[in-house]
């Protein structure tokens, strides 16, 4: 099977600090891959290279068999790489449908496209459709994002990614700051994505979550990828040892 995403030798520096060091990683259709590691291990930096926030200093990103060079996040989104960020990428002052359509608003055209207005009805009904399809329950559909709970916001972010036909979903600590029921809900959404064939990269510090939903676990330590295990064939004790640097499958340089 061809990988959806293939990272070759990715390296990213911030001034004198090398945050990601020669990382190789393949992601296949319909799999959920956990990306774990201690604070500052380079997880967010690595995935930001994939989502177009950063440009890697070395290495190659292949997506659906094509070499990619993203200069902006929207470039990555255009090919179907959707990212749910650790710091939520929603506008708190806008409502649900405005957020789902942010940057790609539906428009009505008048006078041969000379004047364009927002097509609020279309955005609202489409948002409703995708939210319903994910079994997400929201109290008040017209609500501003800052009136929603953390889990509901996360659900909106995921719904947005699904609506825009994500072909790869990246989630950076999606269950951060969520209550237990809401964490479950997000894990359910991840399983739903896998069922629909969308691969997911999940970054999380919560190992039980990672073991609950992933097929494969990748561990990073100080910028290196130090382990890559089938979830069924490892346990959290082993993963923690990799995370703290007590074990490593690669030689540090």
């Amino acid at each position, binding site marked *: 099977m061809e990988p959806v995403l293939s990272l070759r030798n990715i390296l990213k520096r911030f001034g004198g600090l090398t945050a990601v060091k020669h990382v190789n990683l393949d992601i296949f259709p319909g799999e959920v891959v956990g990306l774990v590691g201690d604070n500052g291990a380079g997880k967010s930096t690595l995935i930001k290279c994939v989502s177009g926030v950063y440009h890697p200093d070395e290495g190659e990103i292949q997506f659906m068999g094509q070499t990619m060079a993203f200069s902006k996040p929207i470039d990555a989104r255009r090919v179907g790489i959707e990212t749910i960020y650790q710091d939520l990428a929603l*506008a708190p002052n806008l409502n649900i449908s405005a957020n789902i359509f942010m940057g790609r608003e539906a428009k009505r055209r008048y006078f041969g496209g000379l004047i364009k207005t927002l097509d609020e009805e279309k955005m609202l009904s489409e948002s409703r459709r995708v939210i319903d399809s994910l079994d997400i329950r929201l109290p008040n559909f017209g609500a501003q994002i800052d009136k929603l709970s953390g889990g509901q916001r996360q659900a909106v972010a995921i719904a947005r990614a699904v609506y825009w036909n994500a072909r790869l979903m990246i989630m950076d600590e999606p269950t951060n700051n969520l209550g237990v029921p809401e964490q479950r809900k997000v894990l359910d959404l991840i399983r739903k994505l896998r069922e629909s064939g969308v691969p997911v990269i999940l970054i999380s510090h919560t190992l039980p979550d990672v073991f609950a939903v992933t097929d494969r676990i990748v561990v990073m330590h100080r910028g290196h990828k130090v382990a890559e295990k089938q979830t069924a064939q490892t346990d959290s004790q082993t993963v923690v040892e990799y995370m703290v640097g007590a074990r490593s499958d690669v030689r540090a340089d």
Partner: protein
Amino acid sequence: MALESQTDVSTLTATQQSVRAQRHVLLTLSRVWAWVFLIALIVFFSLSVSITSEGDVNFLTLRNSQNILIAITPVLLMGLGQTFVIIAGGIDLSVGWVMGLSSVISALLARDLVARGIDPTPAIFLAFAGGIAASGMVGLINGLIIARLKVPPFIVTLGVSFIVRGVALLFSGGQTVAGLPTQLRDFGNESLLYWVGGGANQLHFLRRPEVTGEQLRALDRILGWPVVITAIVVAIAIFLLHKTQFGRHTYAIGGNKEAALRAGVPVDRHTILLYVMSAVTAGIAGLLHSARFSGGSPTAGDPLLLGSIAAVVIGGVSLFGGVGQISGTVIGALIIAVLQTGLVMLGVEAFWQFIVVGSVVILAVLIDQSRDLIIGRAES
């Protein structure tokens, strides 16, 4: 036992309901308070002006209403561009002197073009185009420095404000540019409708009736051209902010700039456009000033800058960005003008205006904050 607990539940819901109802009333009041306040002001001044003058002077007259509308045009025009900028999380401190620059440039062009033998009407059009272009250039400079070089808008527009001040004063030699074609003054002072009162009671459309003496004194200009132009700009602003992608992006940038960027909103380009828009609305105010007073004045806008920001704030636009409406800014400008006119008519010493307007600004922000408190309580 069962009966008792049932009664308990029903009394509980009754109190809960009344609390909810109270909260609802409070919330609605805090949303529409500016309207209520404006109406209350008009009623107050209507009553108090006629009482203190023993019926000789009326606040609520056609002429007075038109004076108020004319008076708010520059403040409102500056406030309109400012509303967009502030909703997007920025601020534009340069608009005061941009208005002055536009007034000077348009006046110089009108004077010199006519002096070179160009017909007054095309000369005035060219002069207006020149004033707008000069303002737009200033906005472009603001926007480019803010968006591309990431300097905070407060600093950039403060610096540019000083620069524009210097440029406007240099161009005008520090004086009012006089000797403008009379057609320009006509444009600034004539109106869409004319009402001849005093018994004649005639309404004229577009053309000023030839009247003299007693009738001339009874002639009222309704919707002067500056008011008409400002109304058109208000309509465009409402459409842009509330109905188009441009407006939606303005809110998105003010709400979460990083999120807007990641979602593909062209944040830099949008920011530049916002500052150009802000400068252009100030530029229009400058043109109207030249026309109304038949002179190009470099200092025309400087005293109005803070008033325009006050109008925006009274209208409920948050300086933190992301929140606000055009209608709010219109009401804010109206409140300030009604206050000023009313106090003058009451014979209150002019300096009191500042004290009152300042208090209203703070009051407005307090009310907006209390709304968040009410909503916060409603949630928990």
